[in-house]
């Protein structure tokens, strides 16, 4: 028999259901506006690659969509696999699965890609908002950071390409929010290690942000006072071990299911493999210097965000909490190291949710200072 611990002291009151909808609605509208603007004008941040231009169901797509179109029958067809799955596929596995399922329902490959890309782009913004709120920032800063993330070149420039990059890149803020939530809320050590391990595995199949978020998780655990240092280290090690096991199991399952050989196997190289190759080739101090990120890569990172945005972000991060500063430092270090292995603007921007948090902090602080200054001016002039 269940004994009531508490009778009903509170009266039910209609909840403000529609209030949060305005914020999410505004974010969704911003995403759709940016997407449609880009569809109308074409690429904003890249020169066109003629080979990349083609049509899918009458709509423009990038050449890279070919990787994924080939794999749709793997999810929907009964025939034995005609193509294997390389890292280029496994790093977007859930998105590709969802795209295939939506294609089965709607019959339109193009709009299935659009749905997944747009949906994940929007969720990336929502996740940024909630991650920033978890970092004790005011709602205005969180909203601005979310707006900056959804309007960032890393997301916009990949919309309508349909190589699922918009969906991939949004896994960084989603993963950041999930890591913050797990470290803050999961009390039991084993559960926390298991959850973080599963999160890292999910990030590895959502893109490859597990390597950027792993040091961030390390920082979060290090700053978590409810565990002893040995426990923190054990949780981190356990999470990494689980991630490696998950990835190995998935690869084995795919190999056993006939998805082993892939004609696009070399399109995307494994980050660990690249890092090992680089370190094993070190023979002298000069080699080591070349392996480590130099000033040129820092400048490249500045340009990837835009020097003004990055400068504003740095100011904001300096005035943020220690937790935010250390997280941004860890993510930026991981991003910088990634650029040494794979020099591309989107790799340089791997720490983007935290960088945009810094930019939003500066903007909000500046806005408040301006308003305060204006109010003081009005008061000193005796105006009402």
């Amino acid at each position, binding site marked *: 028999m*269940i*004994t*009531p611990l*508490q009778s*009903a002291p*509170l*009266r*039910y009151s209609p*909840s*403000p*259901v529609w209030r*949060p*909808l305005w914020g999410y609605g505004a974010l969704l509208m911003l995403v759709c506006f940016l997407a449609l603007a880009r569809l109308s*004008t*074409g*690429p*904003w941040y890249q*020169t*066109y*690659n*003629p*080979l990349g*231009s*083609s*049509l*899918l*169901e*009458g*709509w*423009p797509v990038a*050449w890279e*969509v070919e990787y994924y*179109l080939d794999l*749709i*029958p*793997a*999810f*929907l*067809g*009964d*025939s*034995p*696999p005609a193509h294997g799955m390389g890292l280029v596929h496994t790093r977007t*596995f*859930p998105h590709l*699965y*969802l795209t*295939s*399922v939506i*294609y*089965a*329902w709607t019959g339109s*490959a193009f709009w299935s890609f659009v749905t997944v890309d747009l949906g994940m782009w929007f969720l990336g913004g929502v996740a940024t908002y909630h991650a920033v709120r978890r970092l004790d920032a005011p709602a205005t800063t969180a909203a601005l950071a979310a707006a900056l993330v959804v309007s960032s070149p890393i997301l916009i420039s990949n919309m309508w390409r349909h190589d699922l990059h918009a969906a991939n890149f949004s896994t960084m803020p989603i993963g950041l929010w*999930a890591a913050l939530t797990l470290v803050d809320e999961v009390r039991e050590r084993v559960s926390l290690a298991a959850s973080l391990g599963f999160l890292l595995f999910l990030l590895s*199949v959502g893109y490859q942000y597990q390597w950027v978020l792993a040091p961030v998780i390390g920082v979060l655990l290090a700053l978590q006072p409810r565990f002893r240092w040995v426990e923190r280290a054990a949780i981190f090690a356990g999470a990494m071990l689980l991630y490696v096991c998950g990835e190995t199991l*998935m690869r084995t*399952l*795919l190999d056993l299911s*006939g*998805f082993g050989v892939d004609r696009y196997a070399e399109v995307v190289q494994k980050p660990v493999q690249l890092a090992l190759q680089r370190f094993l080739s070190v023979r002298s101090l000069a080699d080591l210097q070349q392996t480590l990120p130099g000033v040129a890569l820092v400048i490249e990172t500045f340009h990837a965000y835009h020097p003004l945005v990055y400068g504003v972000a740095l100011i904001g991060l300096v005035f943020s909490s220690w937790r935010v500063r250390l997280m941004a430092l860890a993510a930026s270090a991981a991003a910088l190291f990634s650029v040494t292995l794979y020099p591309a603007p989107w790799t340089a921007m791997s720490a983007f949710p935290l960088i945009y948090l810094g930019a939003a902090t500066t903007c909000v602080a500046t806005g408040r200072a301006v308003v305060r200054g204006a109010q003081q001016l009005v008061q000193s002039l005796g105006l009402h």
Partner: protein
Amino acid sequence: MAVSVSRSTVVDDLTTQAKRALPFVLVGLLATQLRLAFASEPEVSRALASGLRWALASWIAVTSWSVLRELLVPRGQIAANAAAEVSVARVIVTQSMARERVLRTLAAGALLIAAALLRAPSRLAVNVLGFGLLAVPLCWVIQRRAGWPVAVRAATIVTVVAFFPTHLDGSVAPKRHGAVPENPFMWSVTWPSLDWRLRHTIPLAEPWPARPARISVLGASQYAGPAAVLATVNTQEVGALQDWGNGYLGIEIPAAVARGQRTFVIELRVSQVDPGLRILAQRWTGGAAARGSASAFFDGDRWRTGTFNDVLDRSQPGIHLISVSAS
């Protein structure tokens, strides 16, 4: 403790469920009827499949909306609502039971997908894996915000969404295709007369170094006819474009011609008129250094900016897909 359920309770429960399902069944029947009435080749089996799809889709839409509504209620409000109606202990028991139901639903979903796809083991493996990778995080996120009872609904939605396609056999991959005359994004152009010219201007950020330049033109399709495309670069004849494969036509400009140039003005004409010889054009101009004014055509009378769609017999703003790269 043995629980006895009276017959009338079961009947009431079934009646309630049937009433809830009725609107979706009606949507399905309507879709079936419309398909039979308007399809060019009406088939009962296809019409029924369409009806089932619409019935399920409408159920998914309505249930998703109810989940979304629950997600938008702040957590404190849920706790207050729950406390107002039932005791905290009851809430805990309800949550615990709902959590088990989520796990059972997901397990049932995985089993259903596996059973349906036993005929194709590789498809089975990737579908069960994909289902797990989608459903587990989704249910975790939803239960955090709205509680396990709402996550049960989400788990059911994901199961239905993932299970439905298992009866299909989509072994043919969707294909990309080239230009379509009436497409607003990409079309192809040709040379309707011998004096017709296509021009593409590429301004350079700095003078071209002392090395050859490769001019690439993206053809609309593989061409094996008698006509050739003749090129001039900055008014200097450079010869006929070669077939470079992968749909490309191109020519290498000697270093002596290219060196020091700040702009490449490429003009193309044909040795004989052949509507089968076509190159691609697109509406997006952002990738061209000279943007919207990069491409032009000479119609025998005067130069006009943009491209000419001969199939639709009109000029269209856009660019020819012509680029220059270092050899």
